[in-house]
């Protein structure tokens, strides 16, 4: 198979991206930044799929297609999320999660 960068590098990159995303999701307080963290998680998954497909199973394209679908679904998810974020901004005049807490018990 292809020479050059070994597959482990891609997997380490994907792992770092995944956990950066999780960390960002849990610590960031801005809704848009949280959405970006989710995208980071999904892109980590995409890298995983593509690396596995290219290096381990190059005869079939299952991983490639899966990542294509992930990109499309992530776009629609972001569209709905941003629509709700805009509505949040109109209602609460902020997009800080700490302030969106009408139901805190």
């Amino acid at each position, binding site marked *: 198979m292809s020479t050059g960068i070994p597959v482990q590098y891609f997997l380490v990159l994907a792992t770092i991206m995944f956990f950066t995303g999780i960390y960002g999701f849990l610590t960031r307080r801005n809704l848009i930044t949280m959405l970006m963290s989710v995208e980071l998680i999904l892109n980590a998954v995409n890298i995983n799929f593509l690396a596995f497909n290219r290096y381990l199973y190059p005869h079939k394209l299952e991983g490639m297609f899966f990542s294509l679908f992930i990109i499309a679904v992530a776009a629609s998810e972001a569209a*709905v999320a941003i629509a709700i974020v805009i*509505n949040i901004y109109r209602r*609460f005049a902020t997009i800080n999660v700490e302030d*969106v807490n009408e*139901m805190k018990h």
Partner: protein
Amino acid sequence: MSLGTFFIMRHELLLITAALLVLIAEIFVDAGKKRSISLFSVIIFGVITLAGFIPSPTGTVFGGMYISSGTTLLMKNILNIGVFLVFIQSLTWLKKEENSEKISEYFILLIFTLTGMNFMISAGHFLMFYIGIELATIPIAALAAFDRYRNKSAEAGIKLIFSSALSSGILLYGLSMIYGTTGTLYFSEVAKLFVNNNLQILAFIFFFAGMAFKISIVPFHLWTADVYEGSPINITSYLSVISKGAAVFVLIIILYTVFPVIMGTWQKTIYVTAILTMTIGNLFAIRQQNLKRFLAFSSISQAGYILLGFIGGNQLGMASVIYYILVYIFSNLGAFGVVTAISNATGKENMDDYNGLYQTNPKLSLIMMLALFSLAGIPPVAGFFGKFFLFTAAAQKGFYLLVLIAVLNTIISLFYYLLVVKAMFINKNENPIEKFRSDFPTRFALGLCVAGIVITGFASIIFEAIKNLSFGV
């Protein structure tokens, strides 16, 4: 694509047709007459529900990506019944002035989520499963934020979309590891190539965590109470019954067909999460005053009981899970139906408001009592048999301690269910909720729920039929 293919995919194709018909109706109906769309949609959906019961061929489509079997047909029919009840219950709410412009959106989005659930139940490939689960969750978030002018609704929507996005990210990370270790994503081939190495167990844990978000299993339950409280009440009942039921169905199918090799691992996972889910759901439910929050925590603890059916990996376990979901649909929709009726008539949702309800609205109180008894599992009603079969399935495989903890939890749950009953029947109130007569759809839906609670409990043929269609590991 032959004609037979269409019959195999009948449920999904009918639902997509229905959604398109509602879309077309939205275009051609005049602005003033939008309310007629709701009746039109309910009738179409009633026809689909009935058509689901026509015997149809089973088989696989798309090279094994889509599988239709007796079990999946049964699950889809159960979900259809539940959605039909939710539709009827929401008619009164949709008549309100603020919703007059959004009626068709409500039906279209709900029908599409149901399509997604059907696809994920029928999936034979993780790609189909993933697309189904996303189709089932993204429109729900839009619906949770349906009341644009209520702050709580927007808050519920944002909490739902963010937690479901995070959970699907985690789930996908697990799927990518499964792909890396097996080289395929077809359920049947993954099951053959699974060898129980550490990476695959990690992949399973990621997968299970993602699914646990959807079923709201502790420790992934934190979004549930807020989303349930903030959403419009009919969406809450849809989330707590249909979404949860579909996720339970798909999880049990995948555990039984894809992960039988690591059964020991998932039994341990489920053992711990079941105990946590039951106990924490029950303990938090005790101190709730808002009935929607109360029912949210009660539904978390119900998910804990349902996990008891998973753990044995036997045929009885799957049968009891499907049966319990059927009973749970009727009981929970009965309880939500009463809360909806009172909320629509008076806007009151707190437990204190229910004091003395029996004096003014005896019928509603009796229905609420029956539904709560069924949720708690008091003998003559269906919920008792549902719990009994779940506990039997776990005990059959020797999980006696788990069953004991579940029985103790049932006693705790009885306490808080009876708090509501006590409020309605015993507590005195100077000015209780006034006597009101709910309109025909509400009464019809509540009647169906009561009939369901009674009939599923007494007709043993239903459980036998479900058991014949179930399978073990």
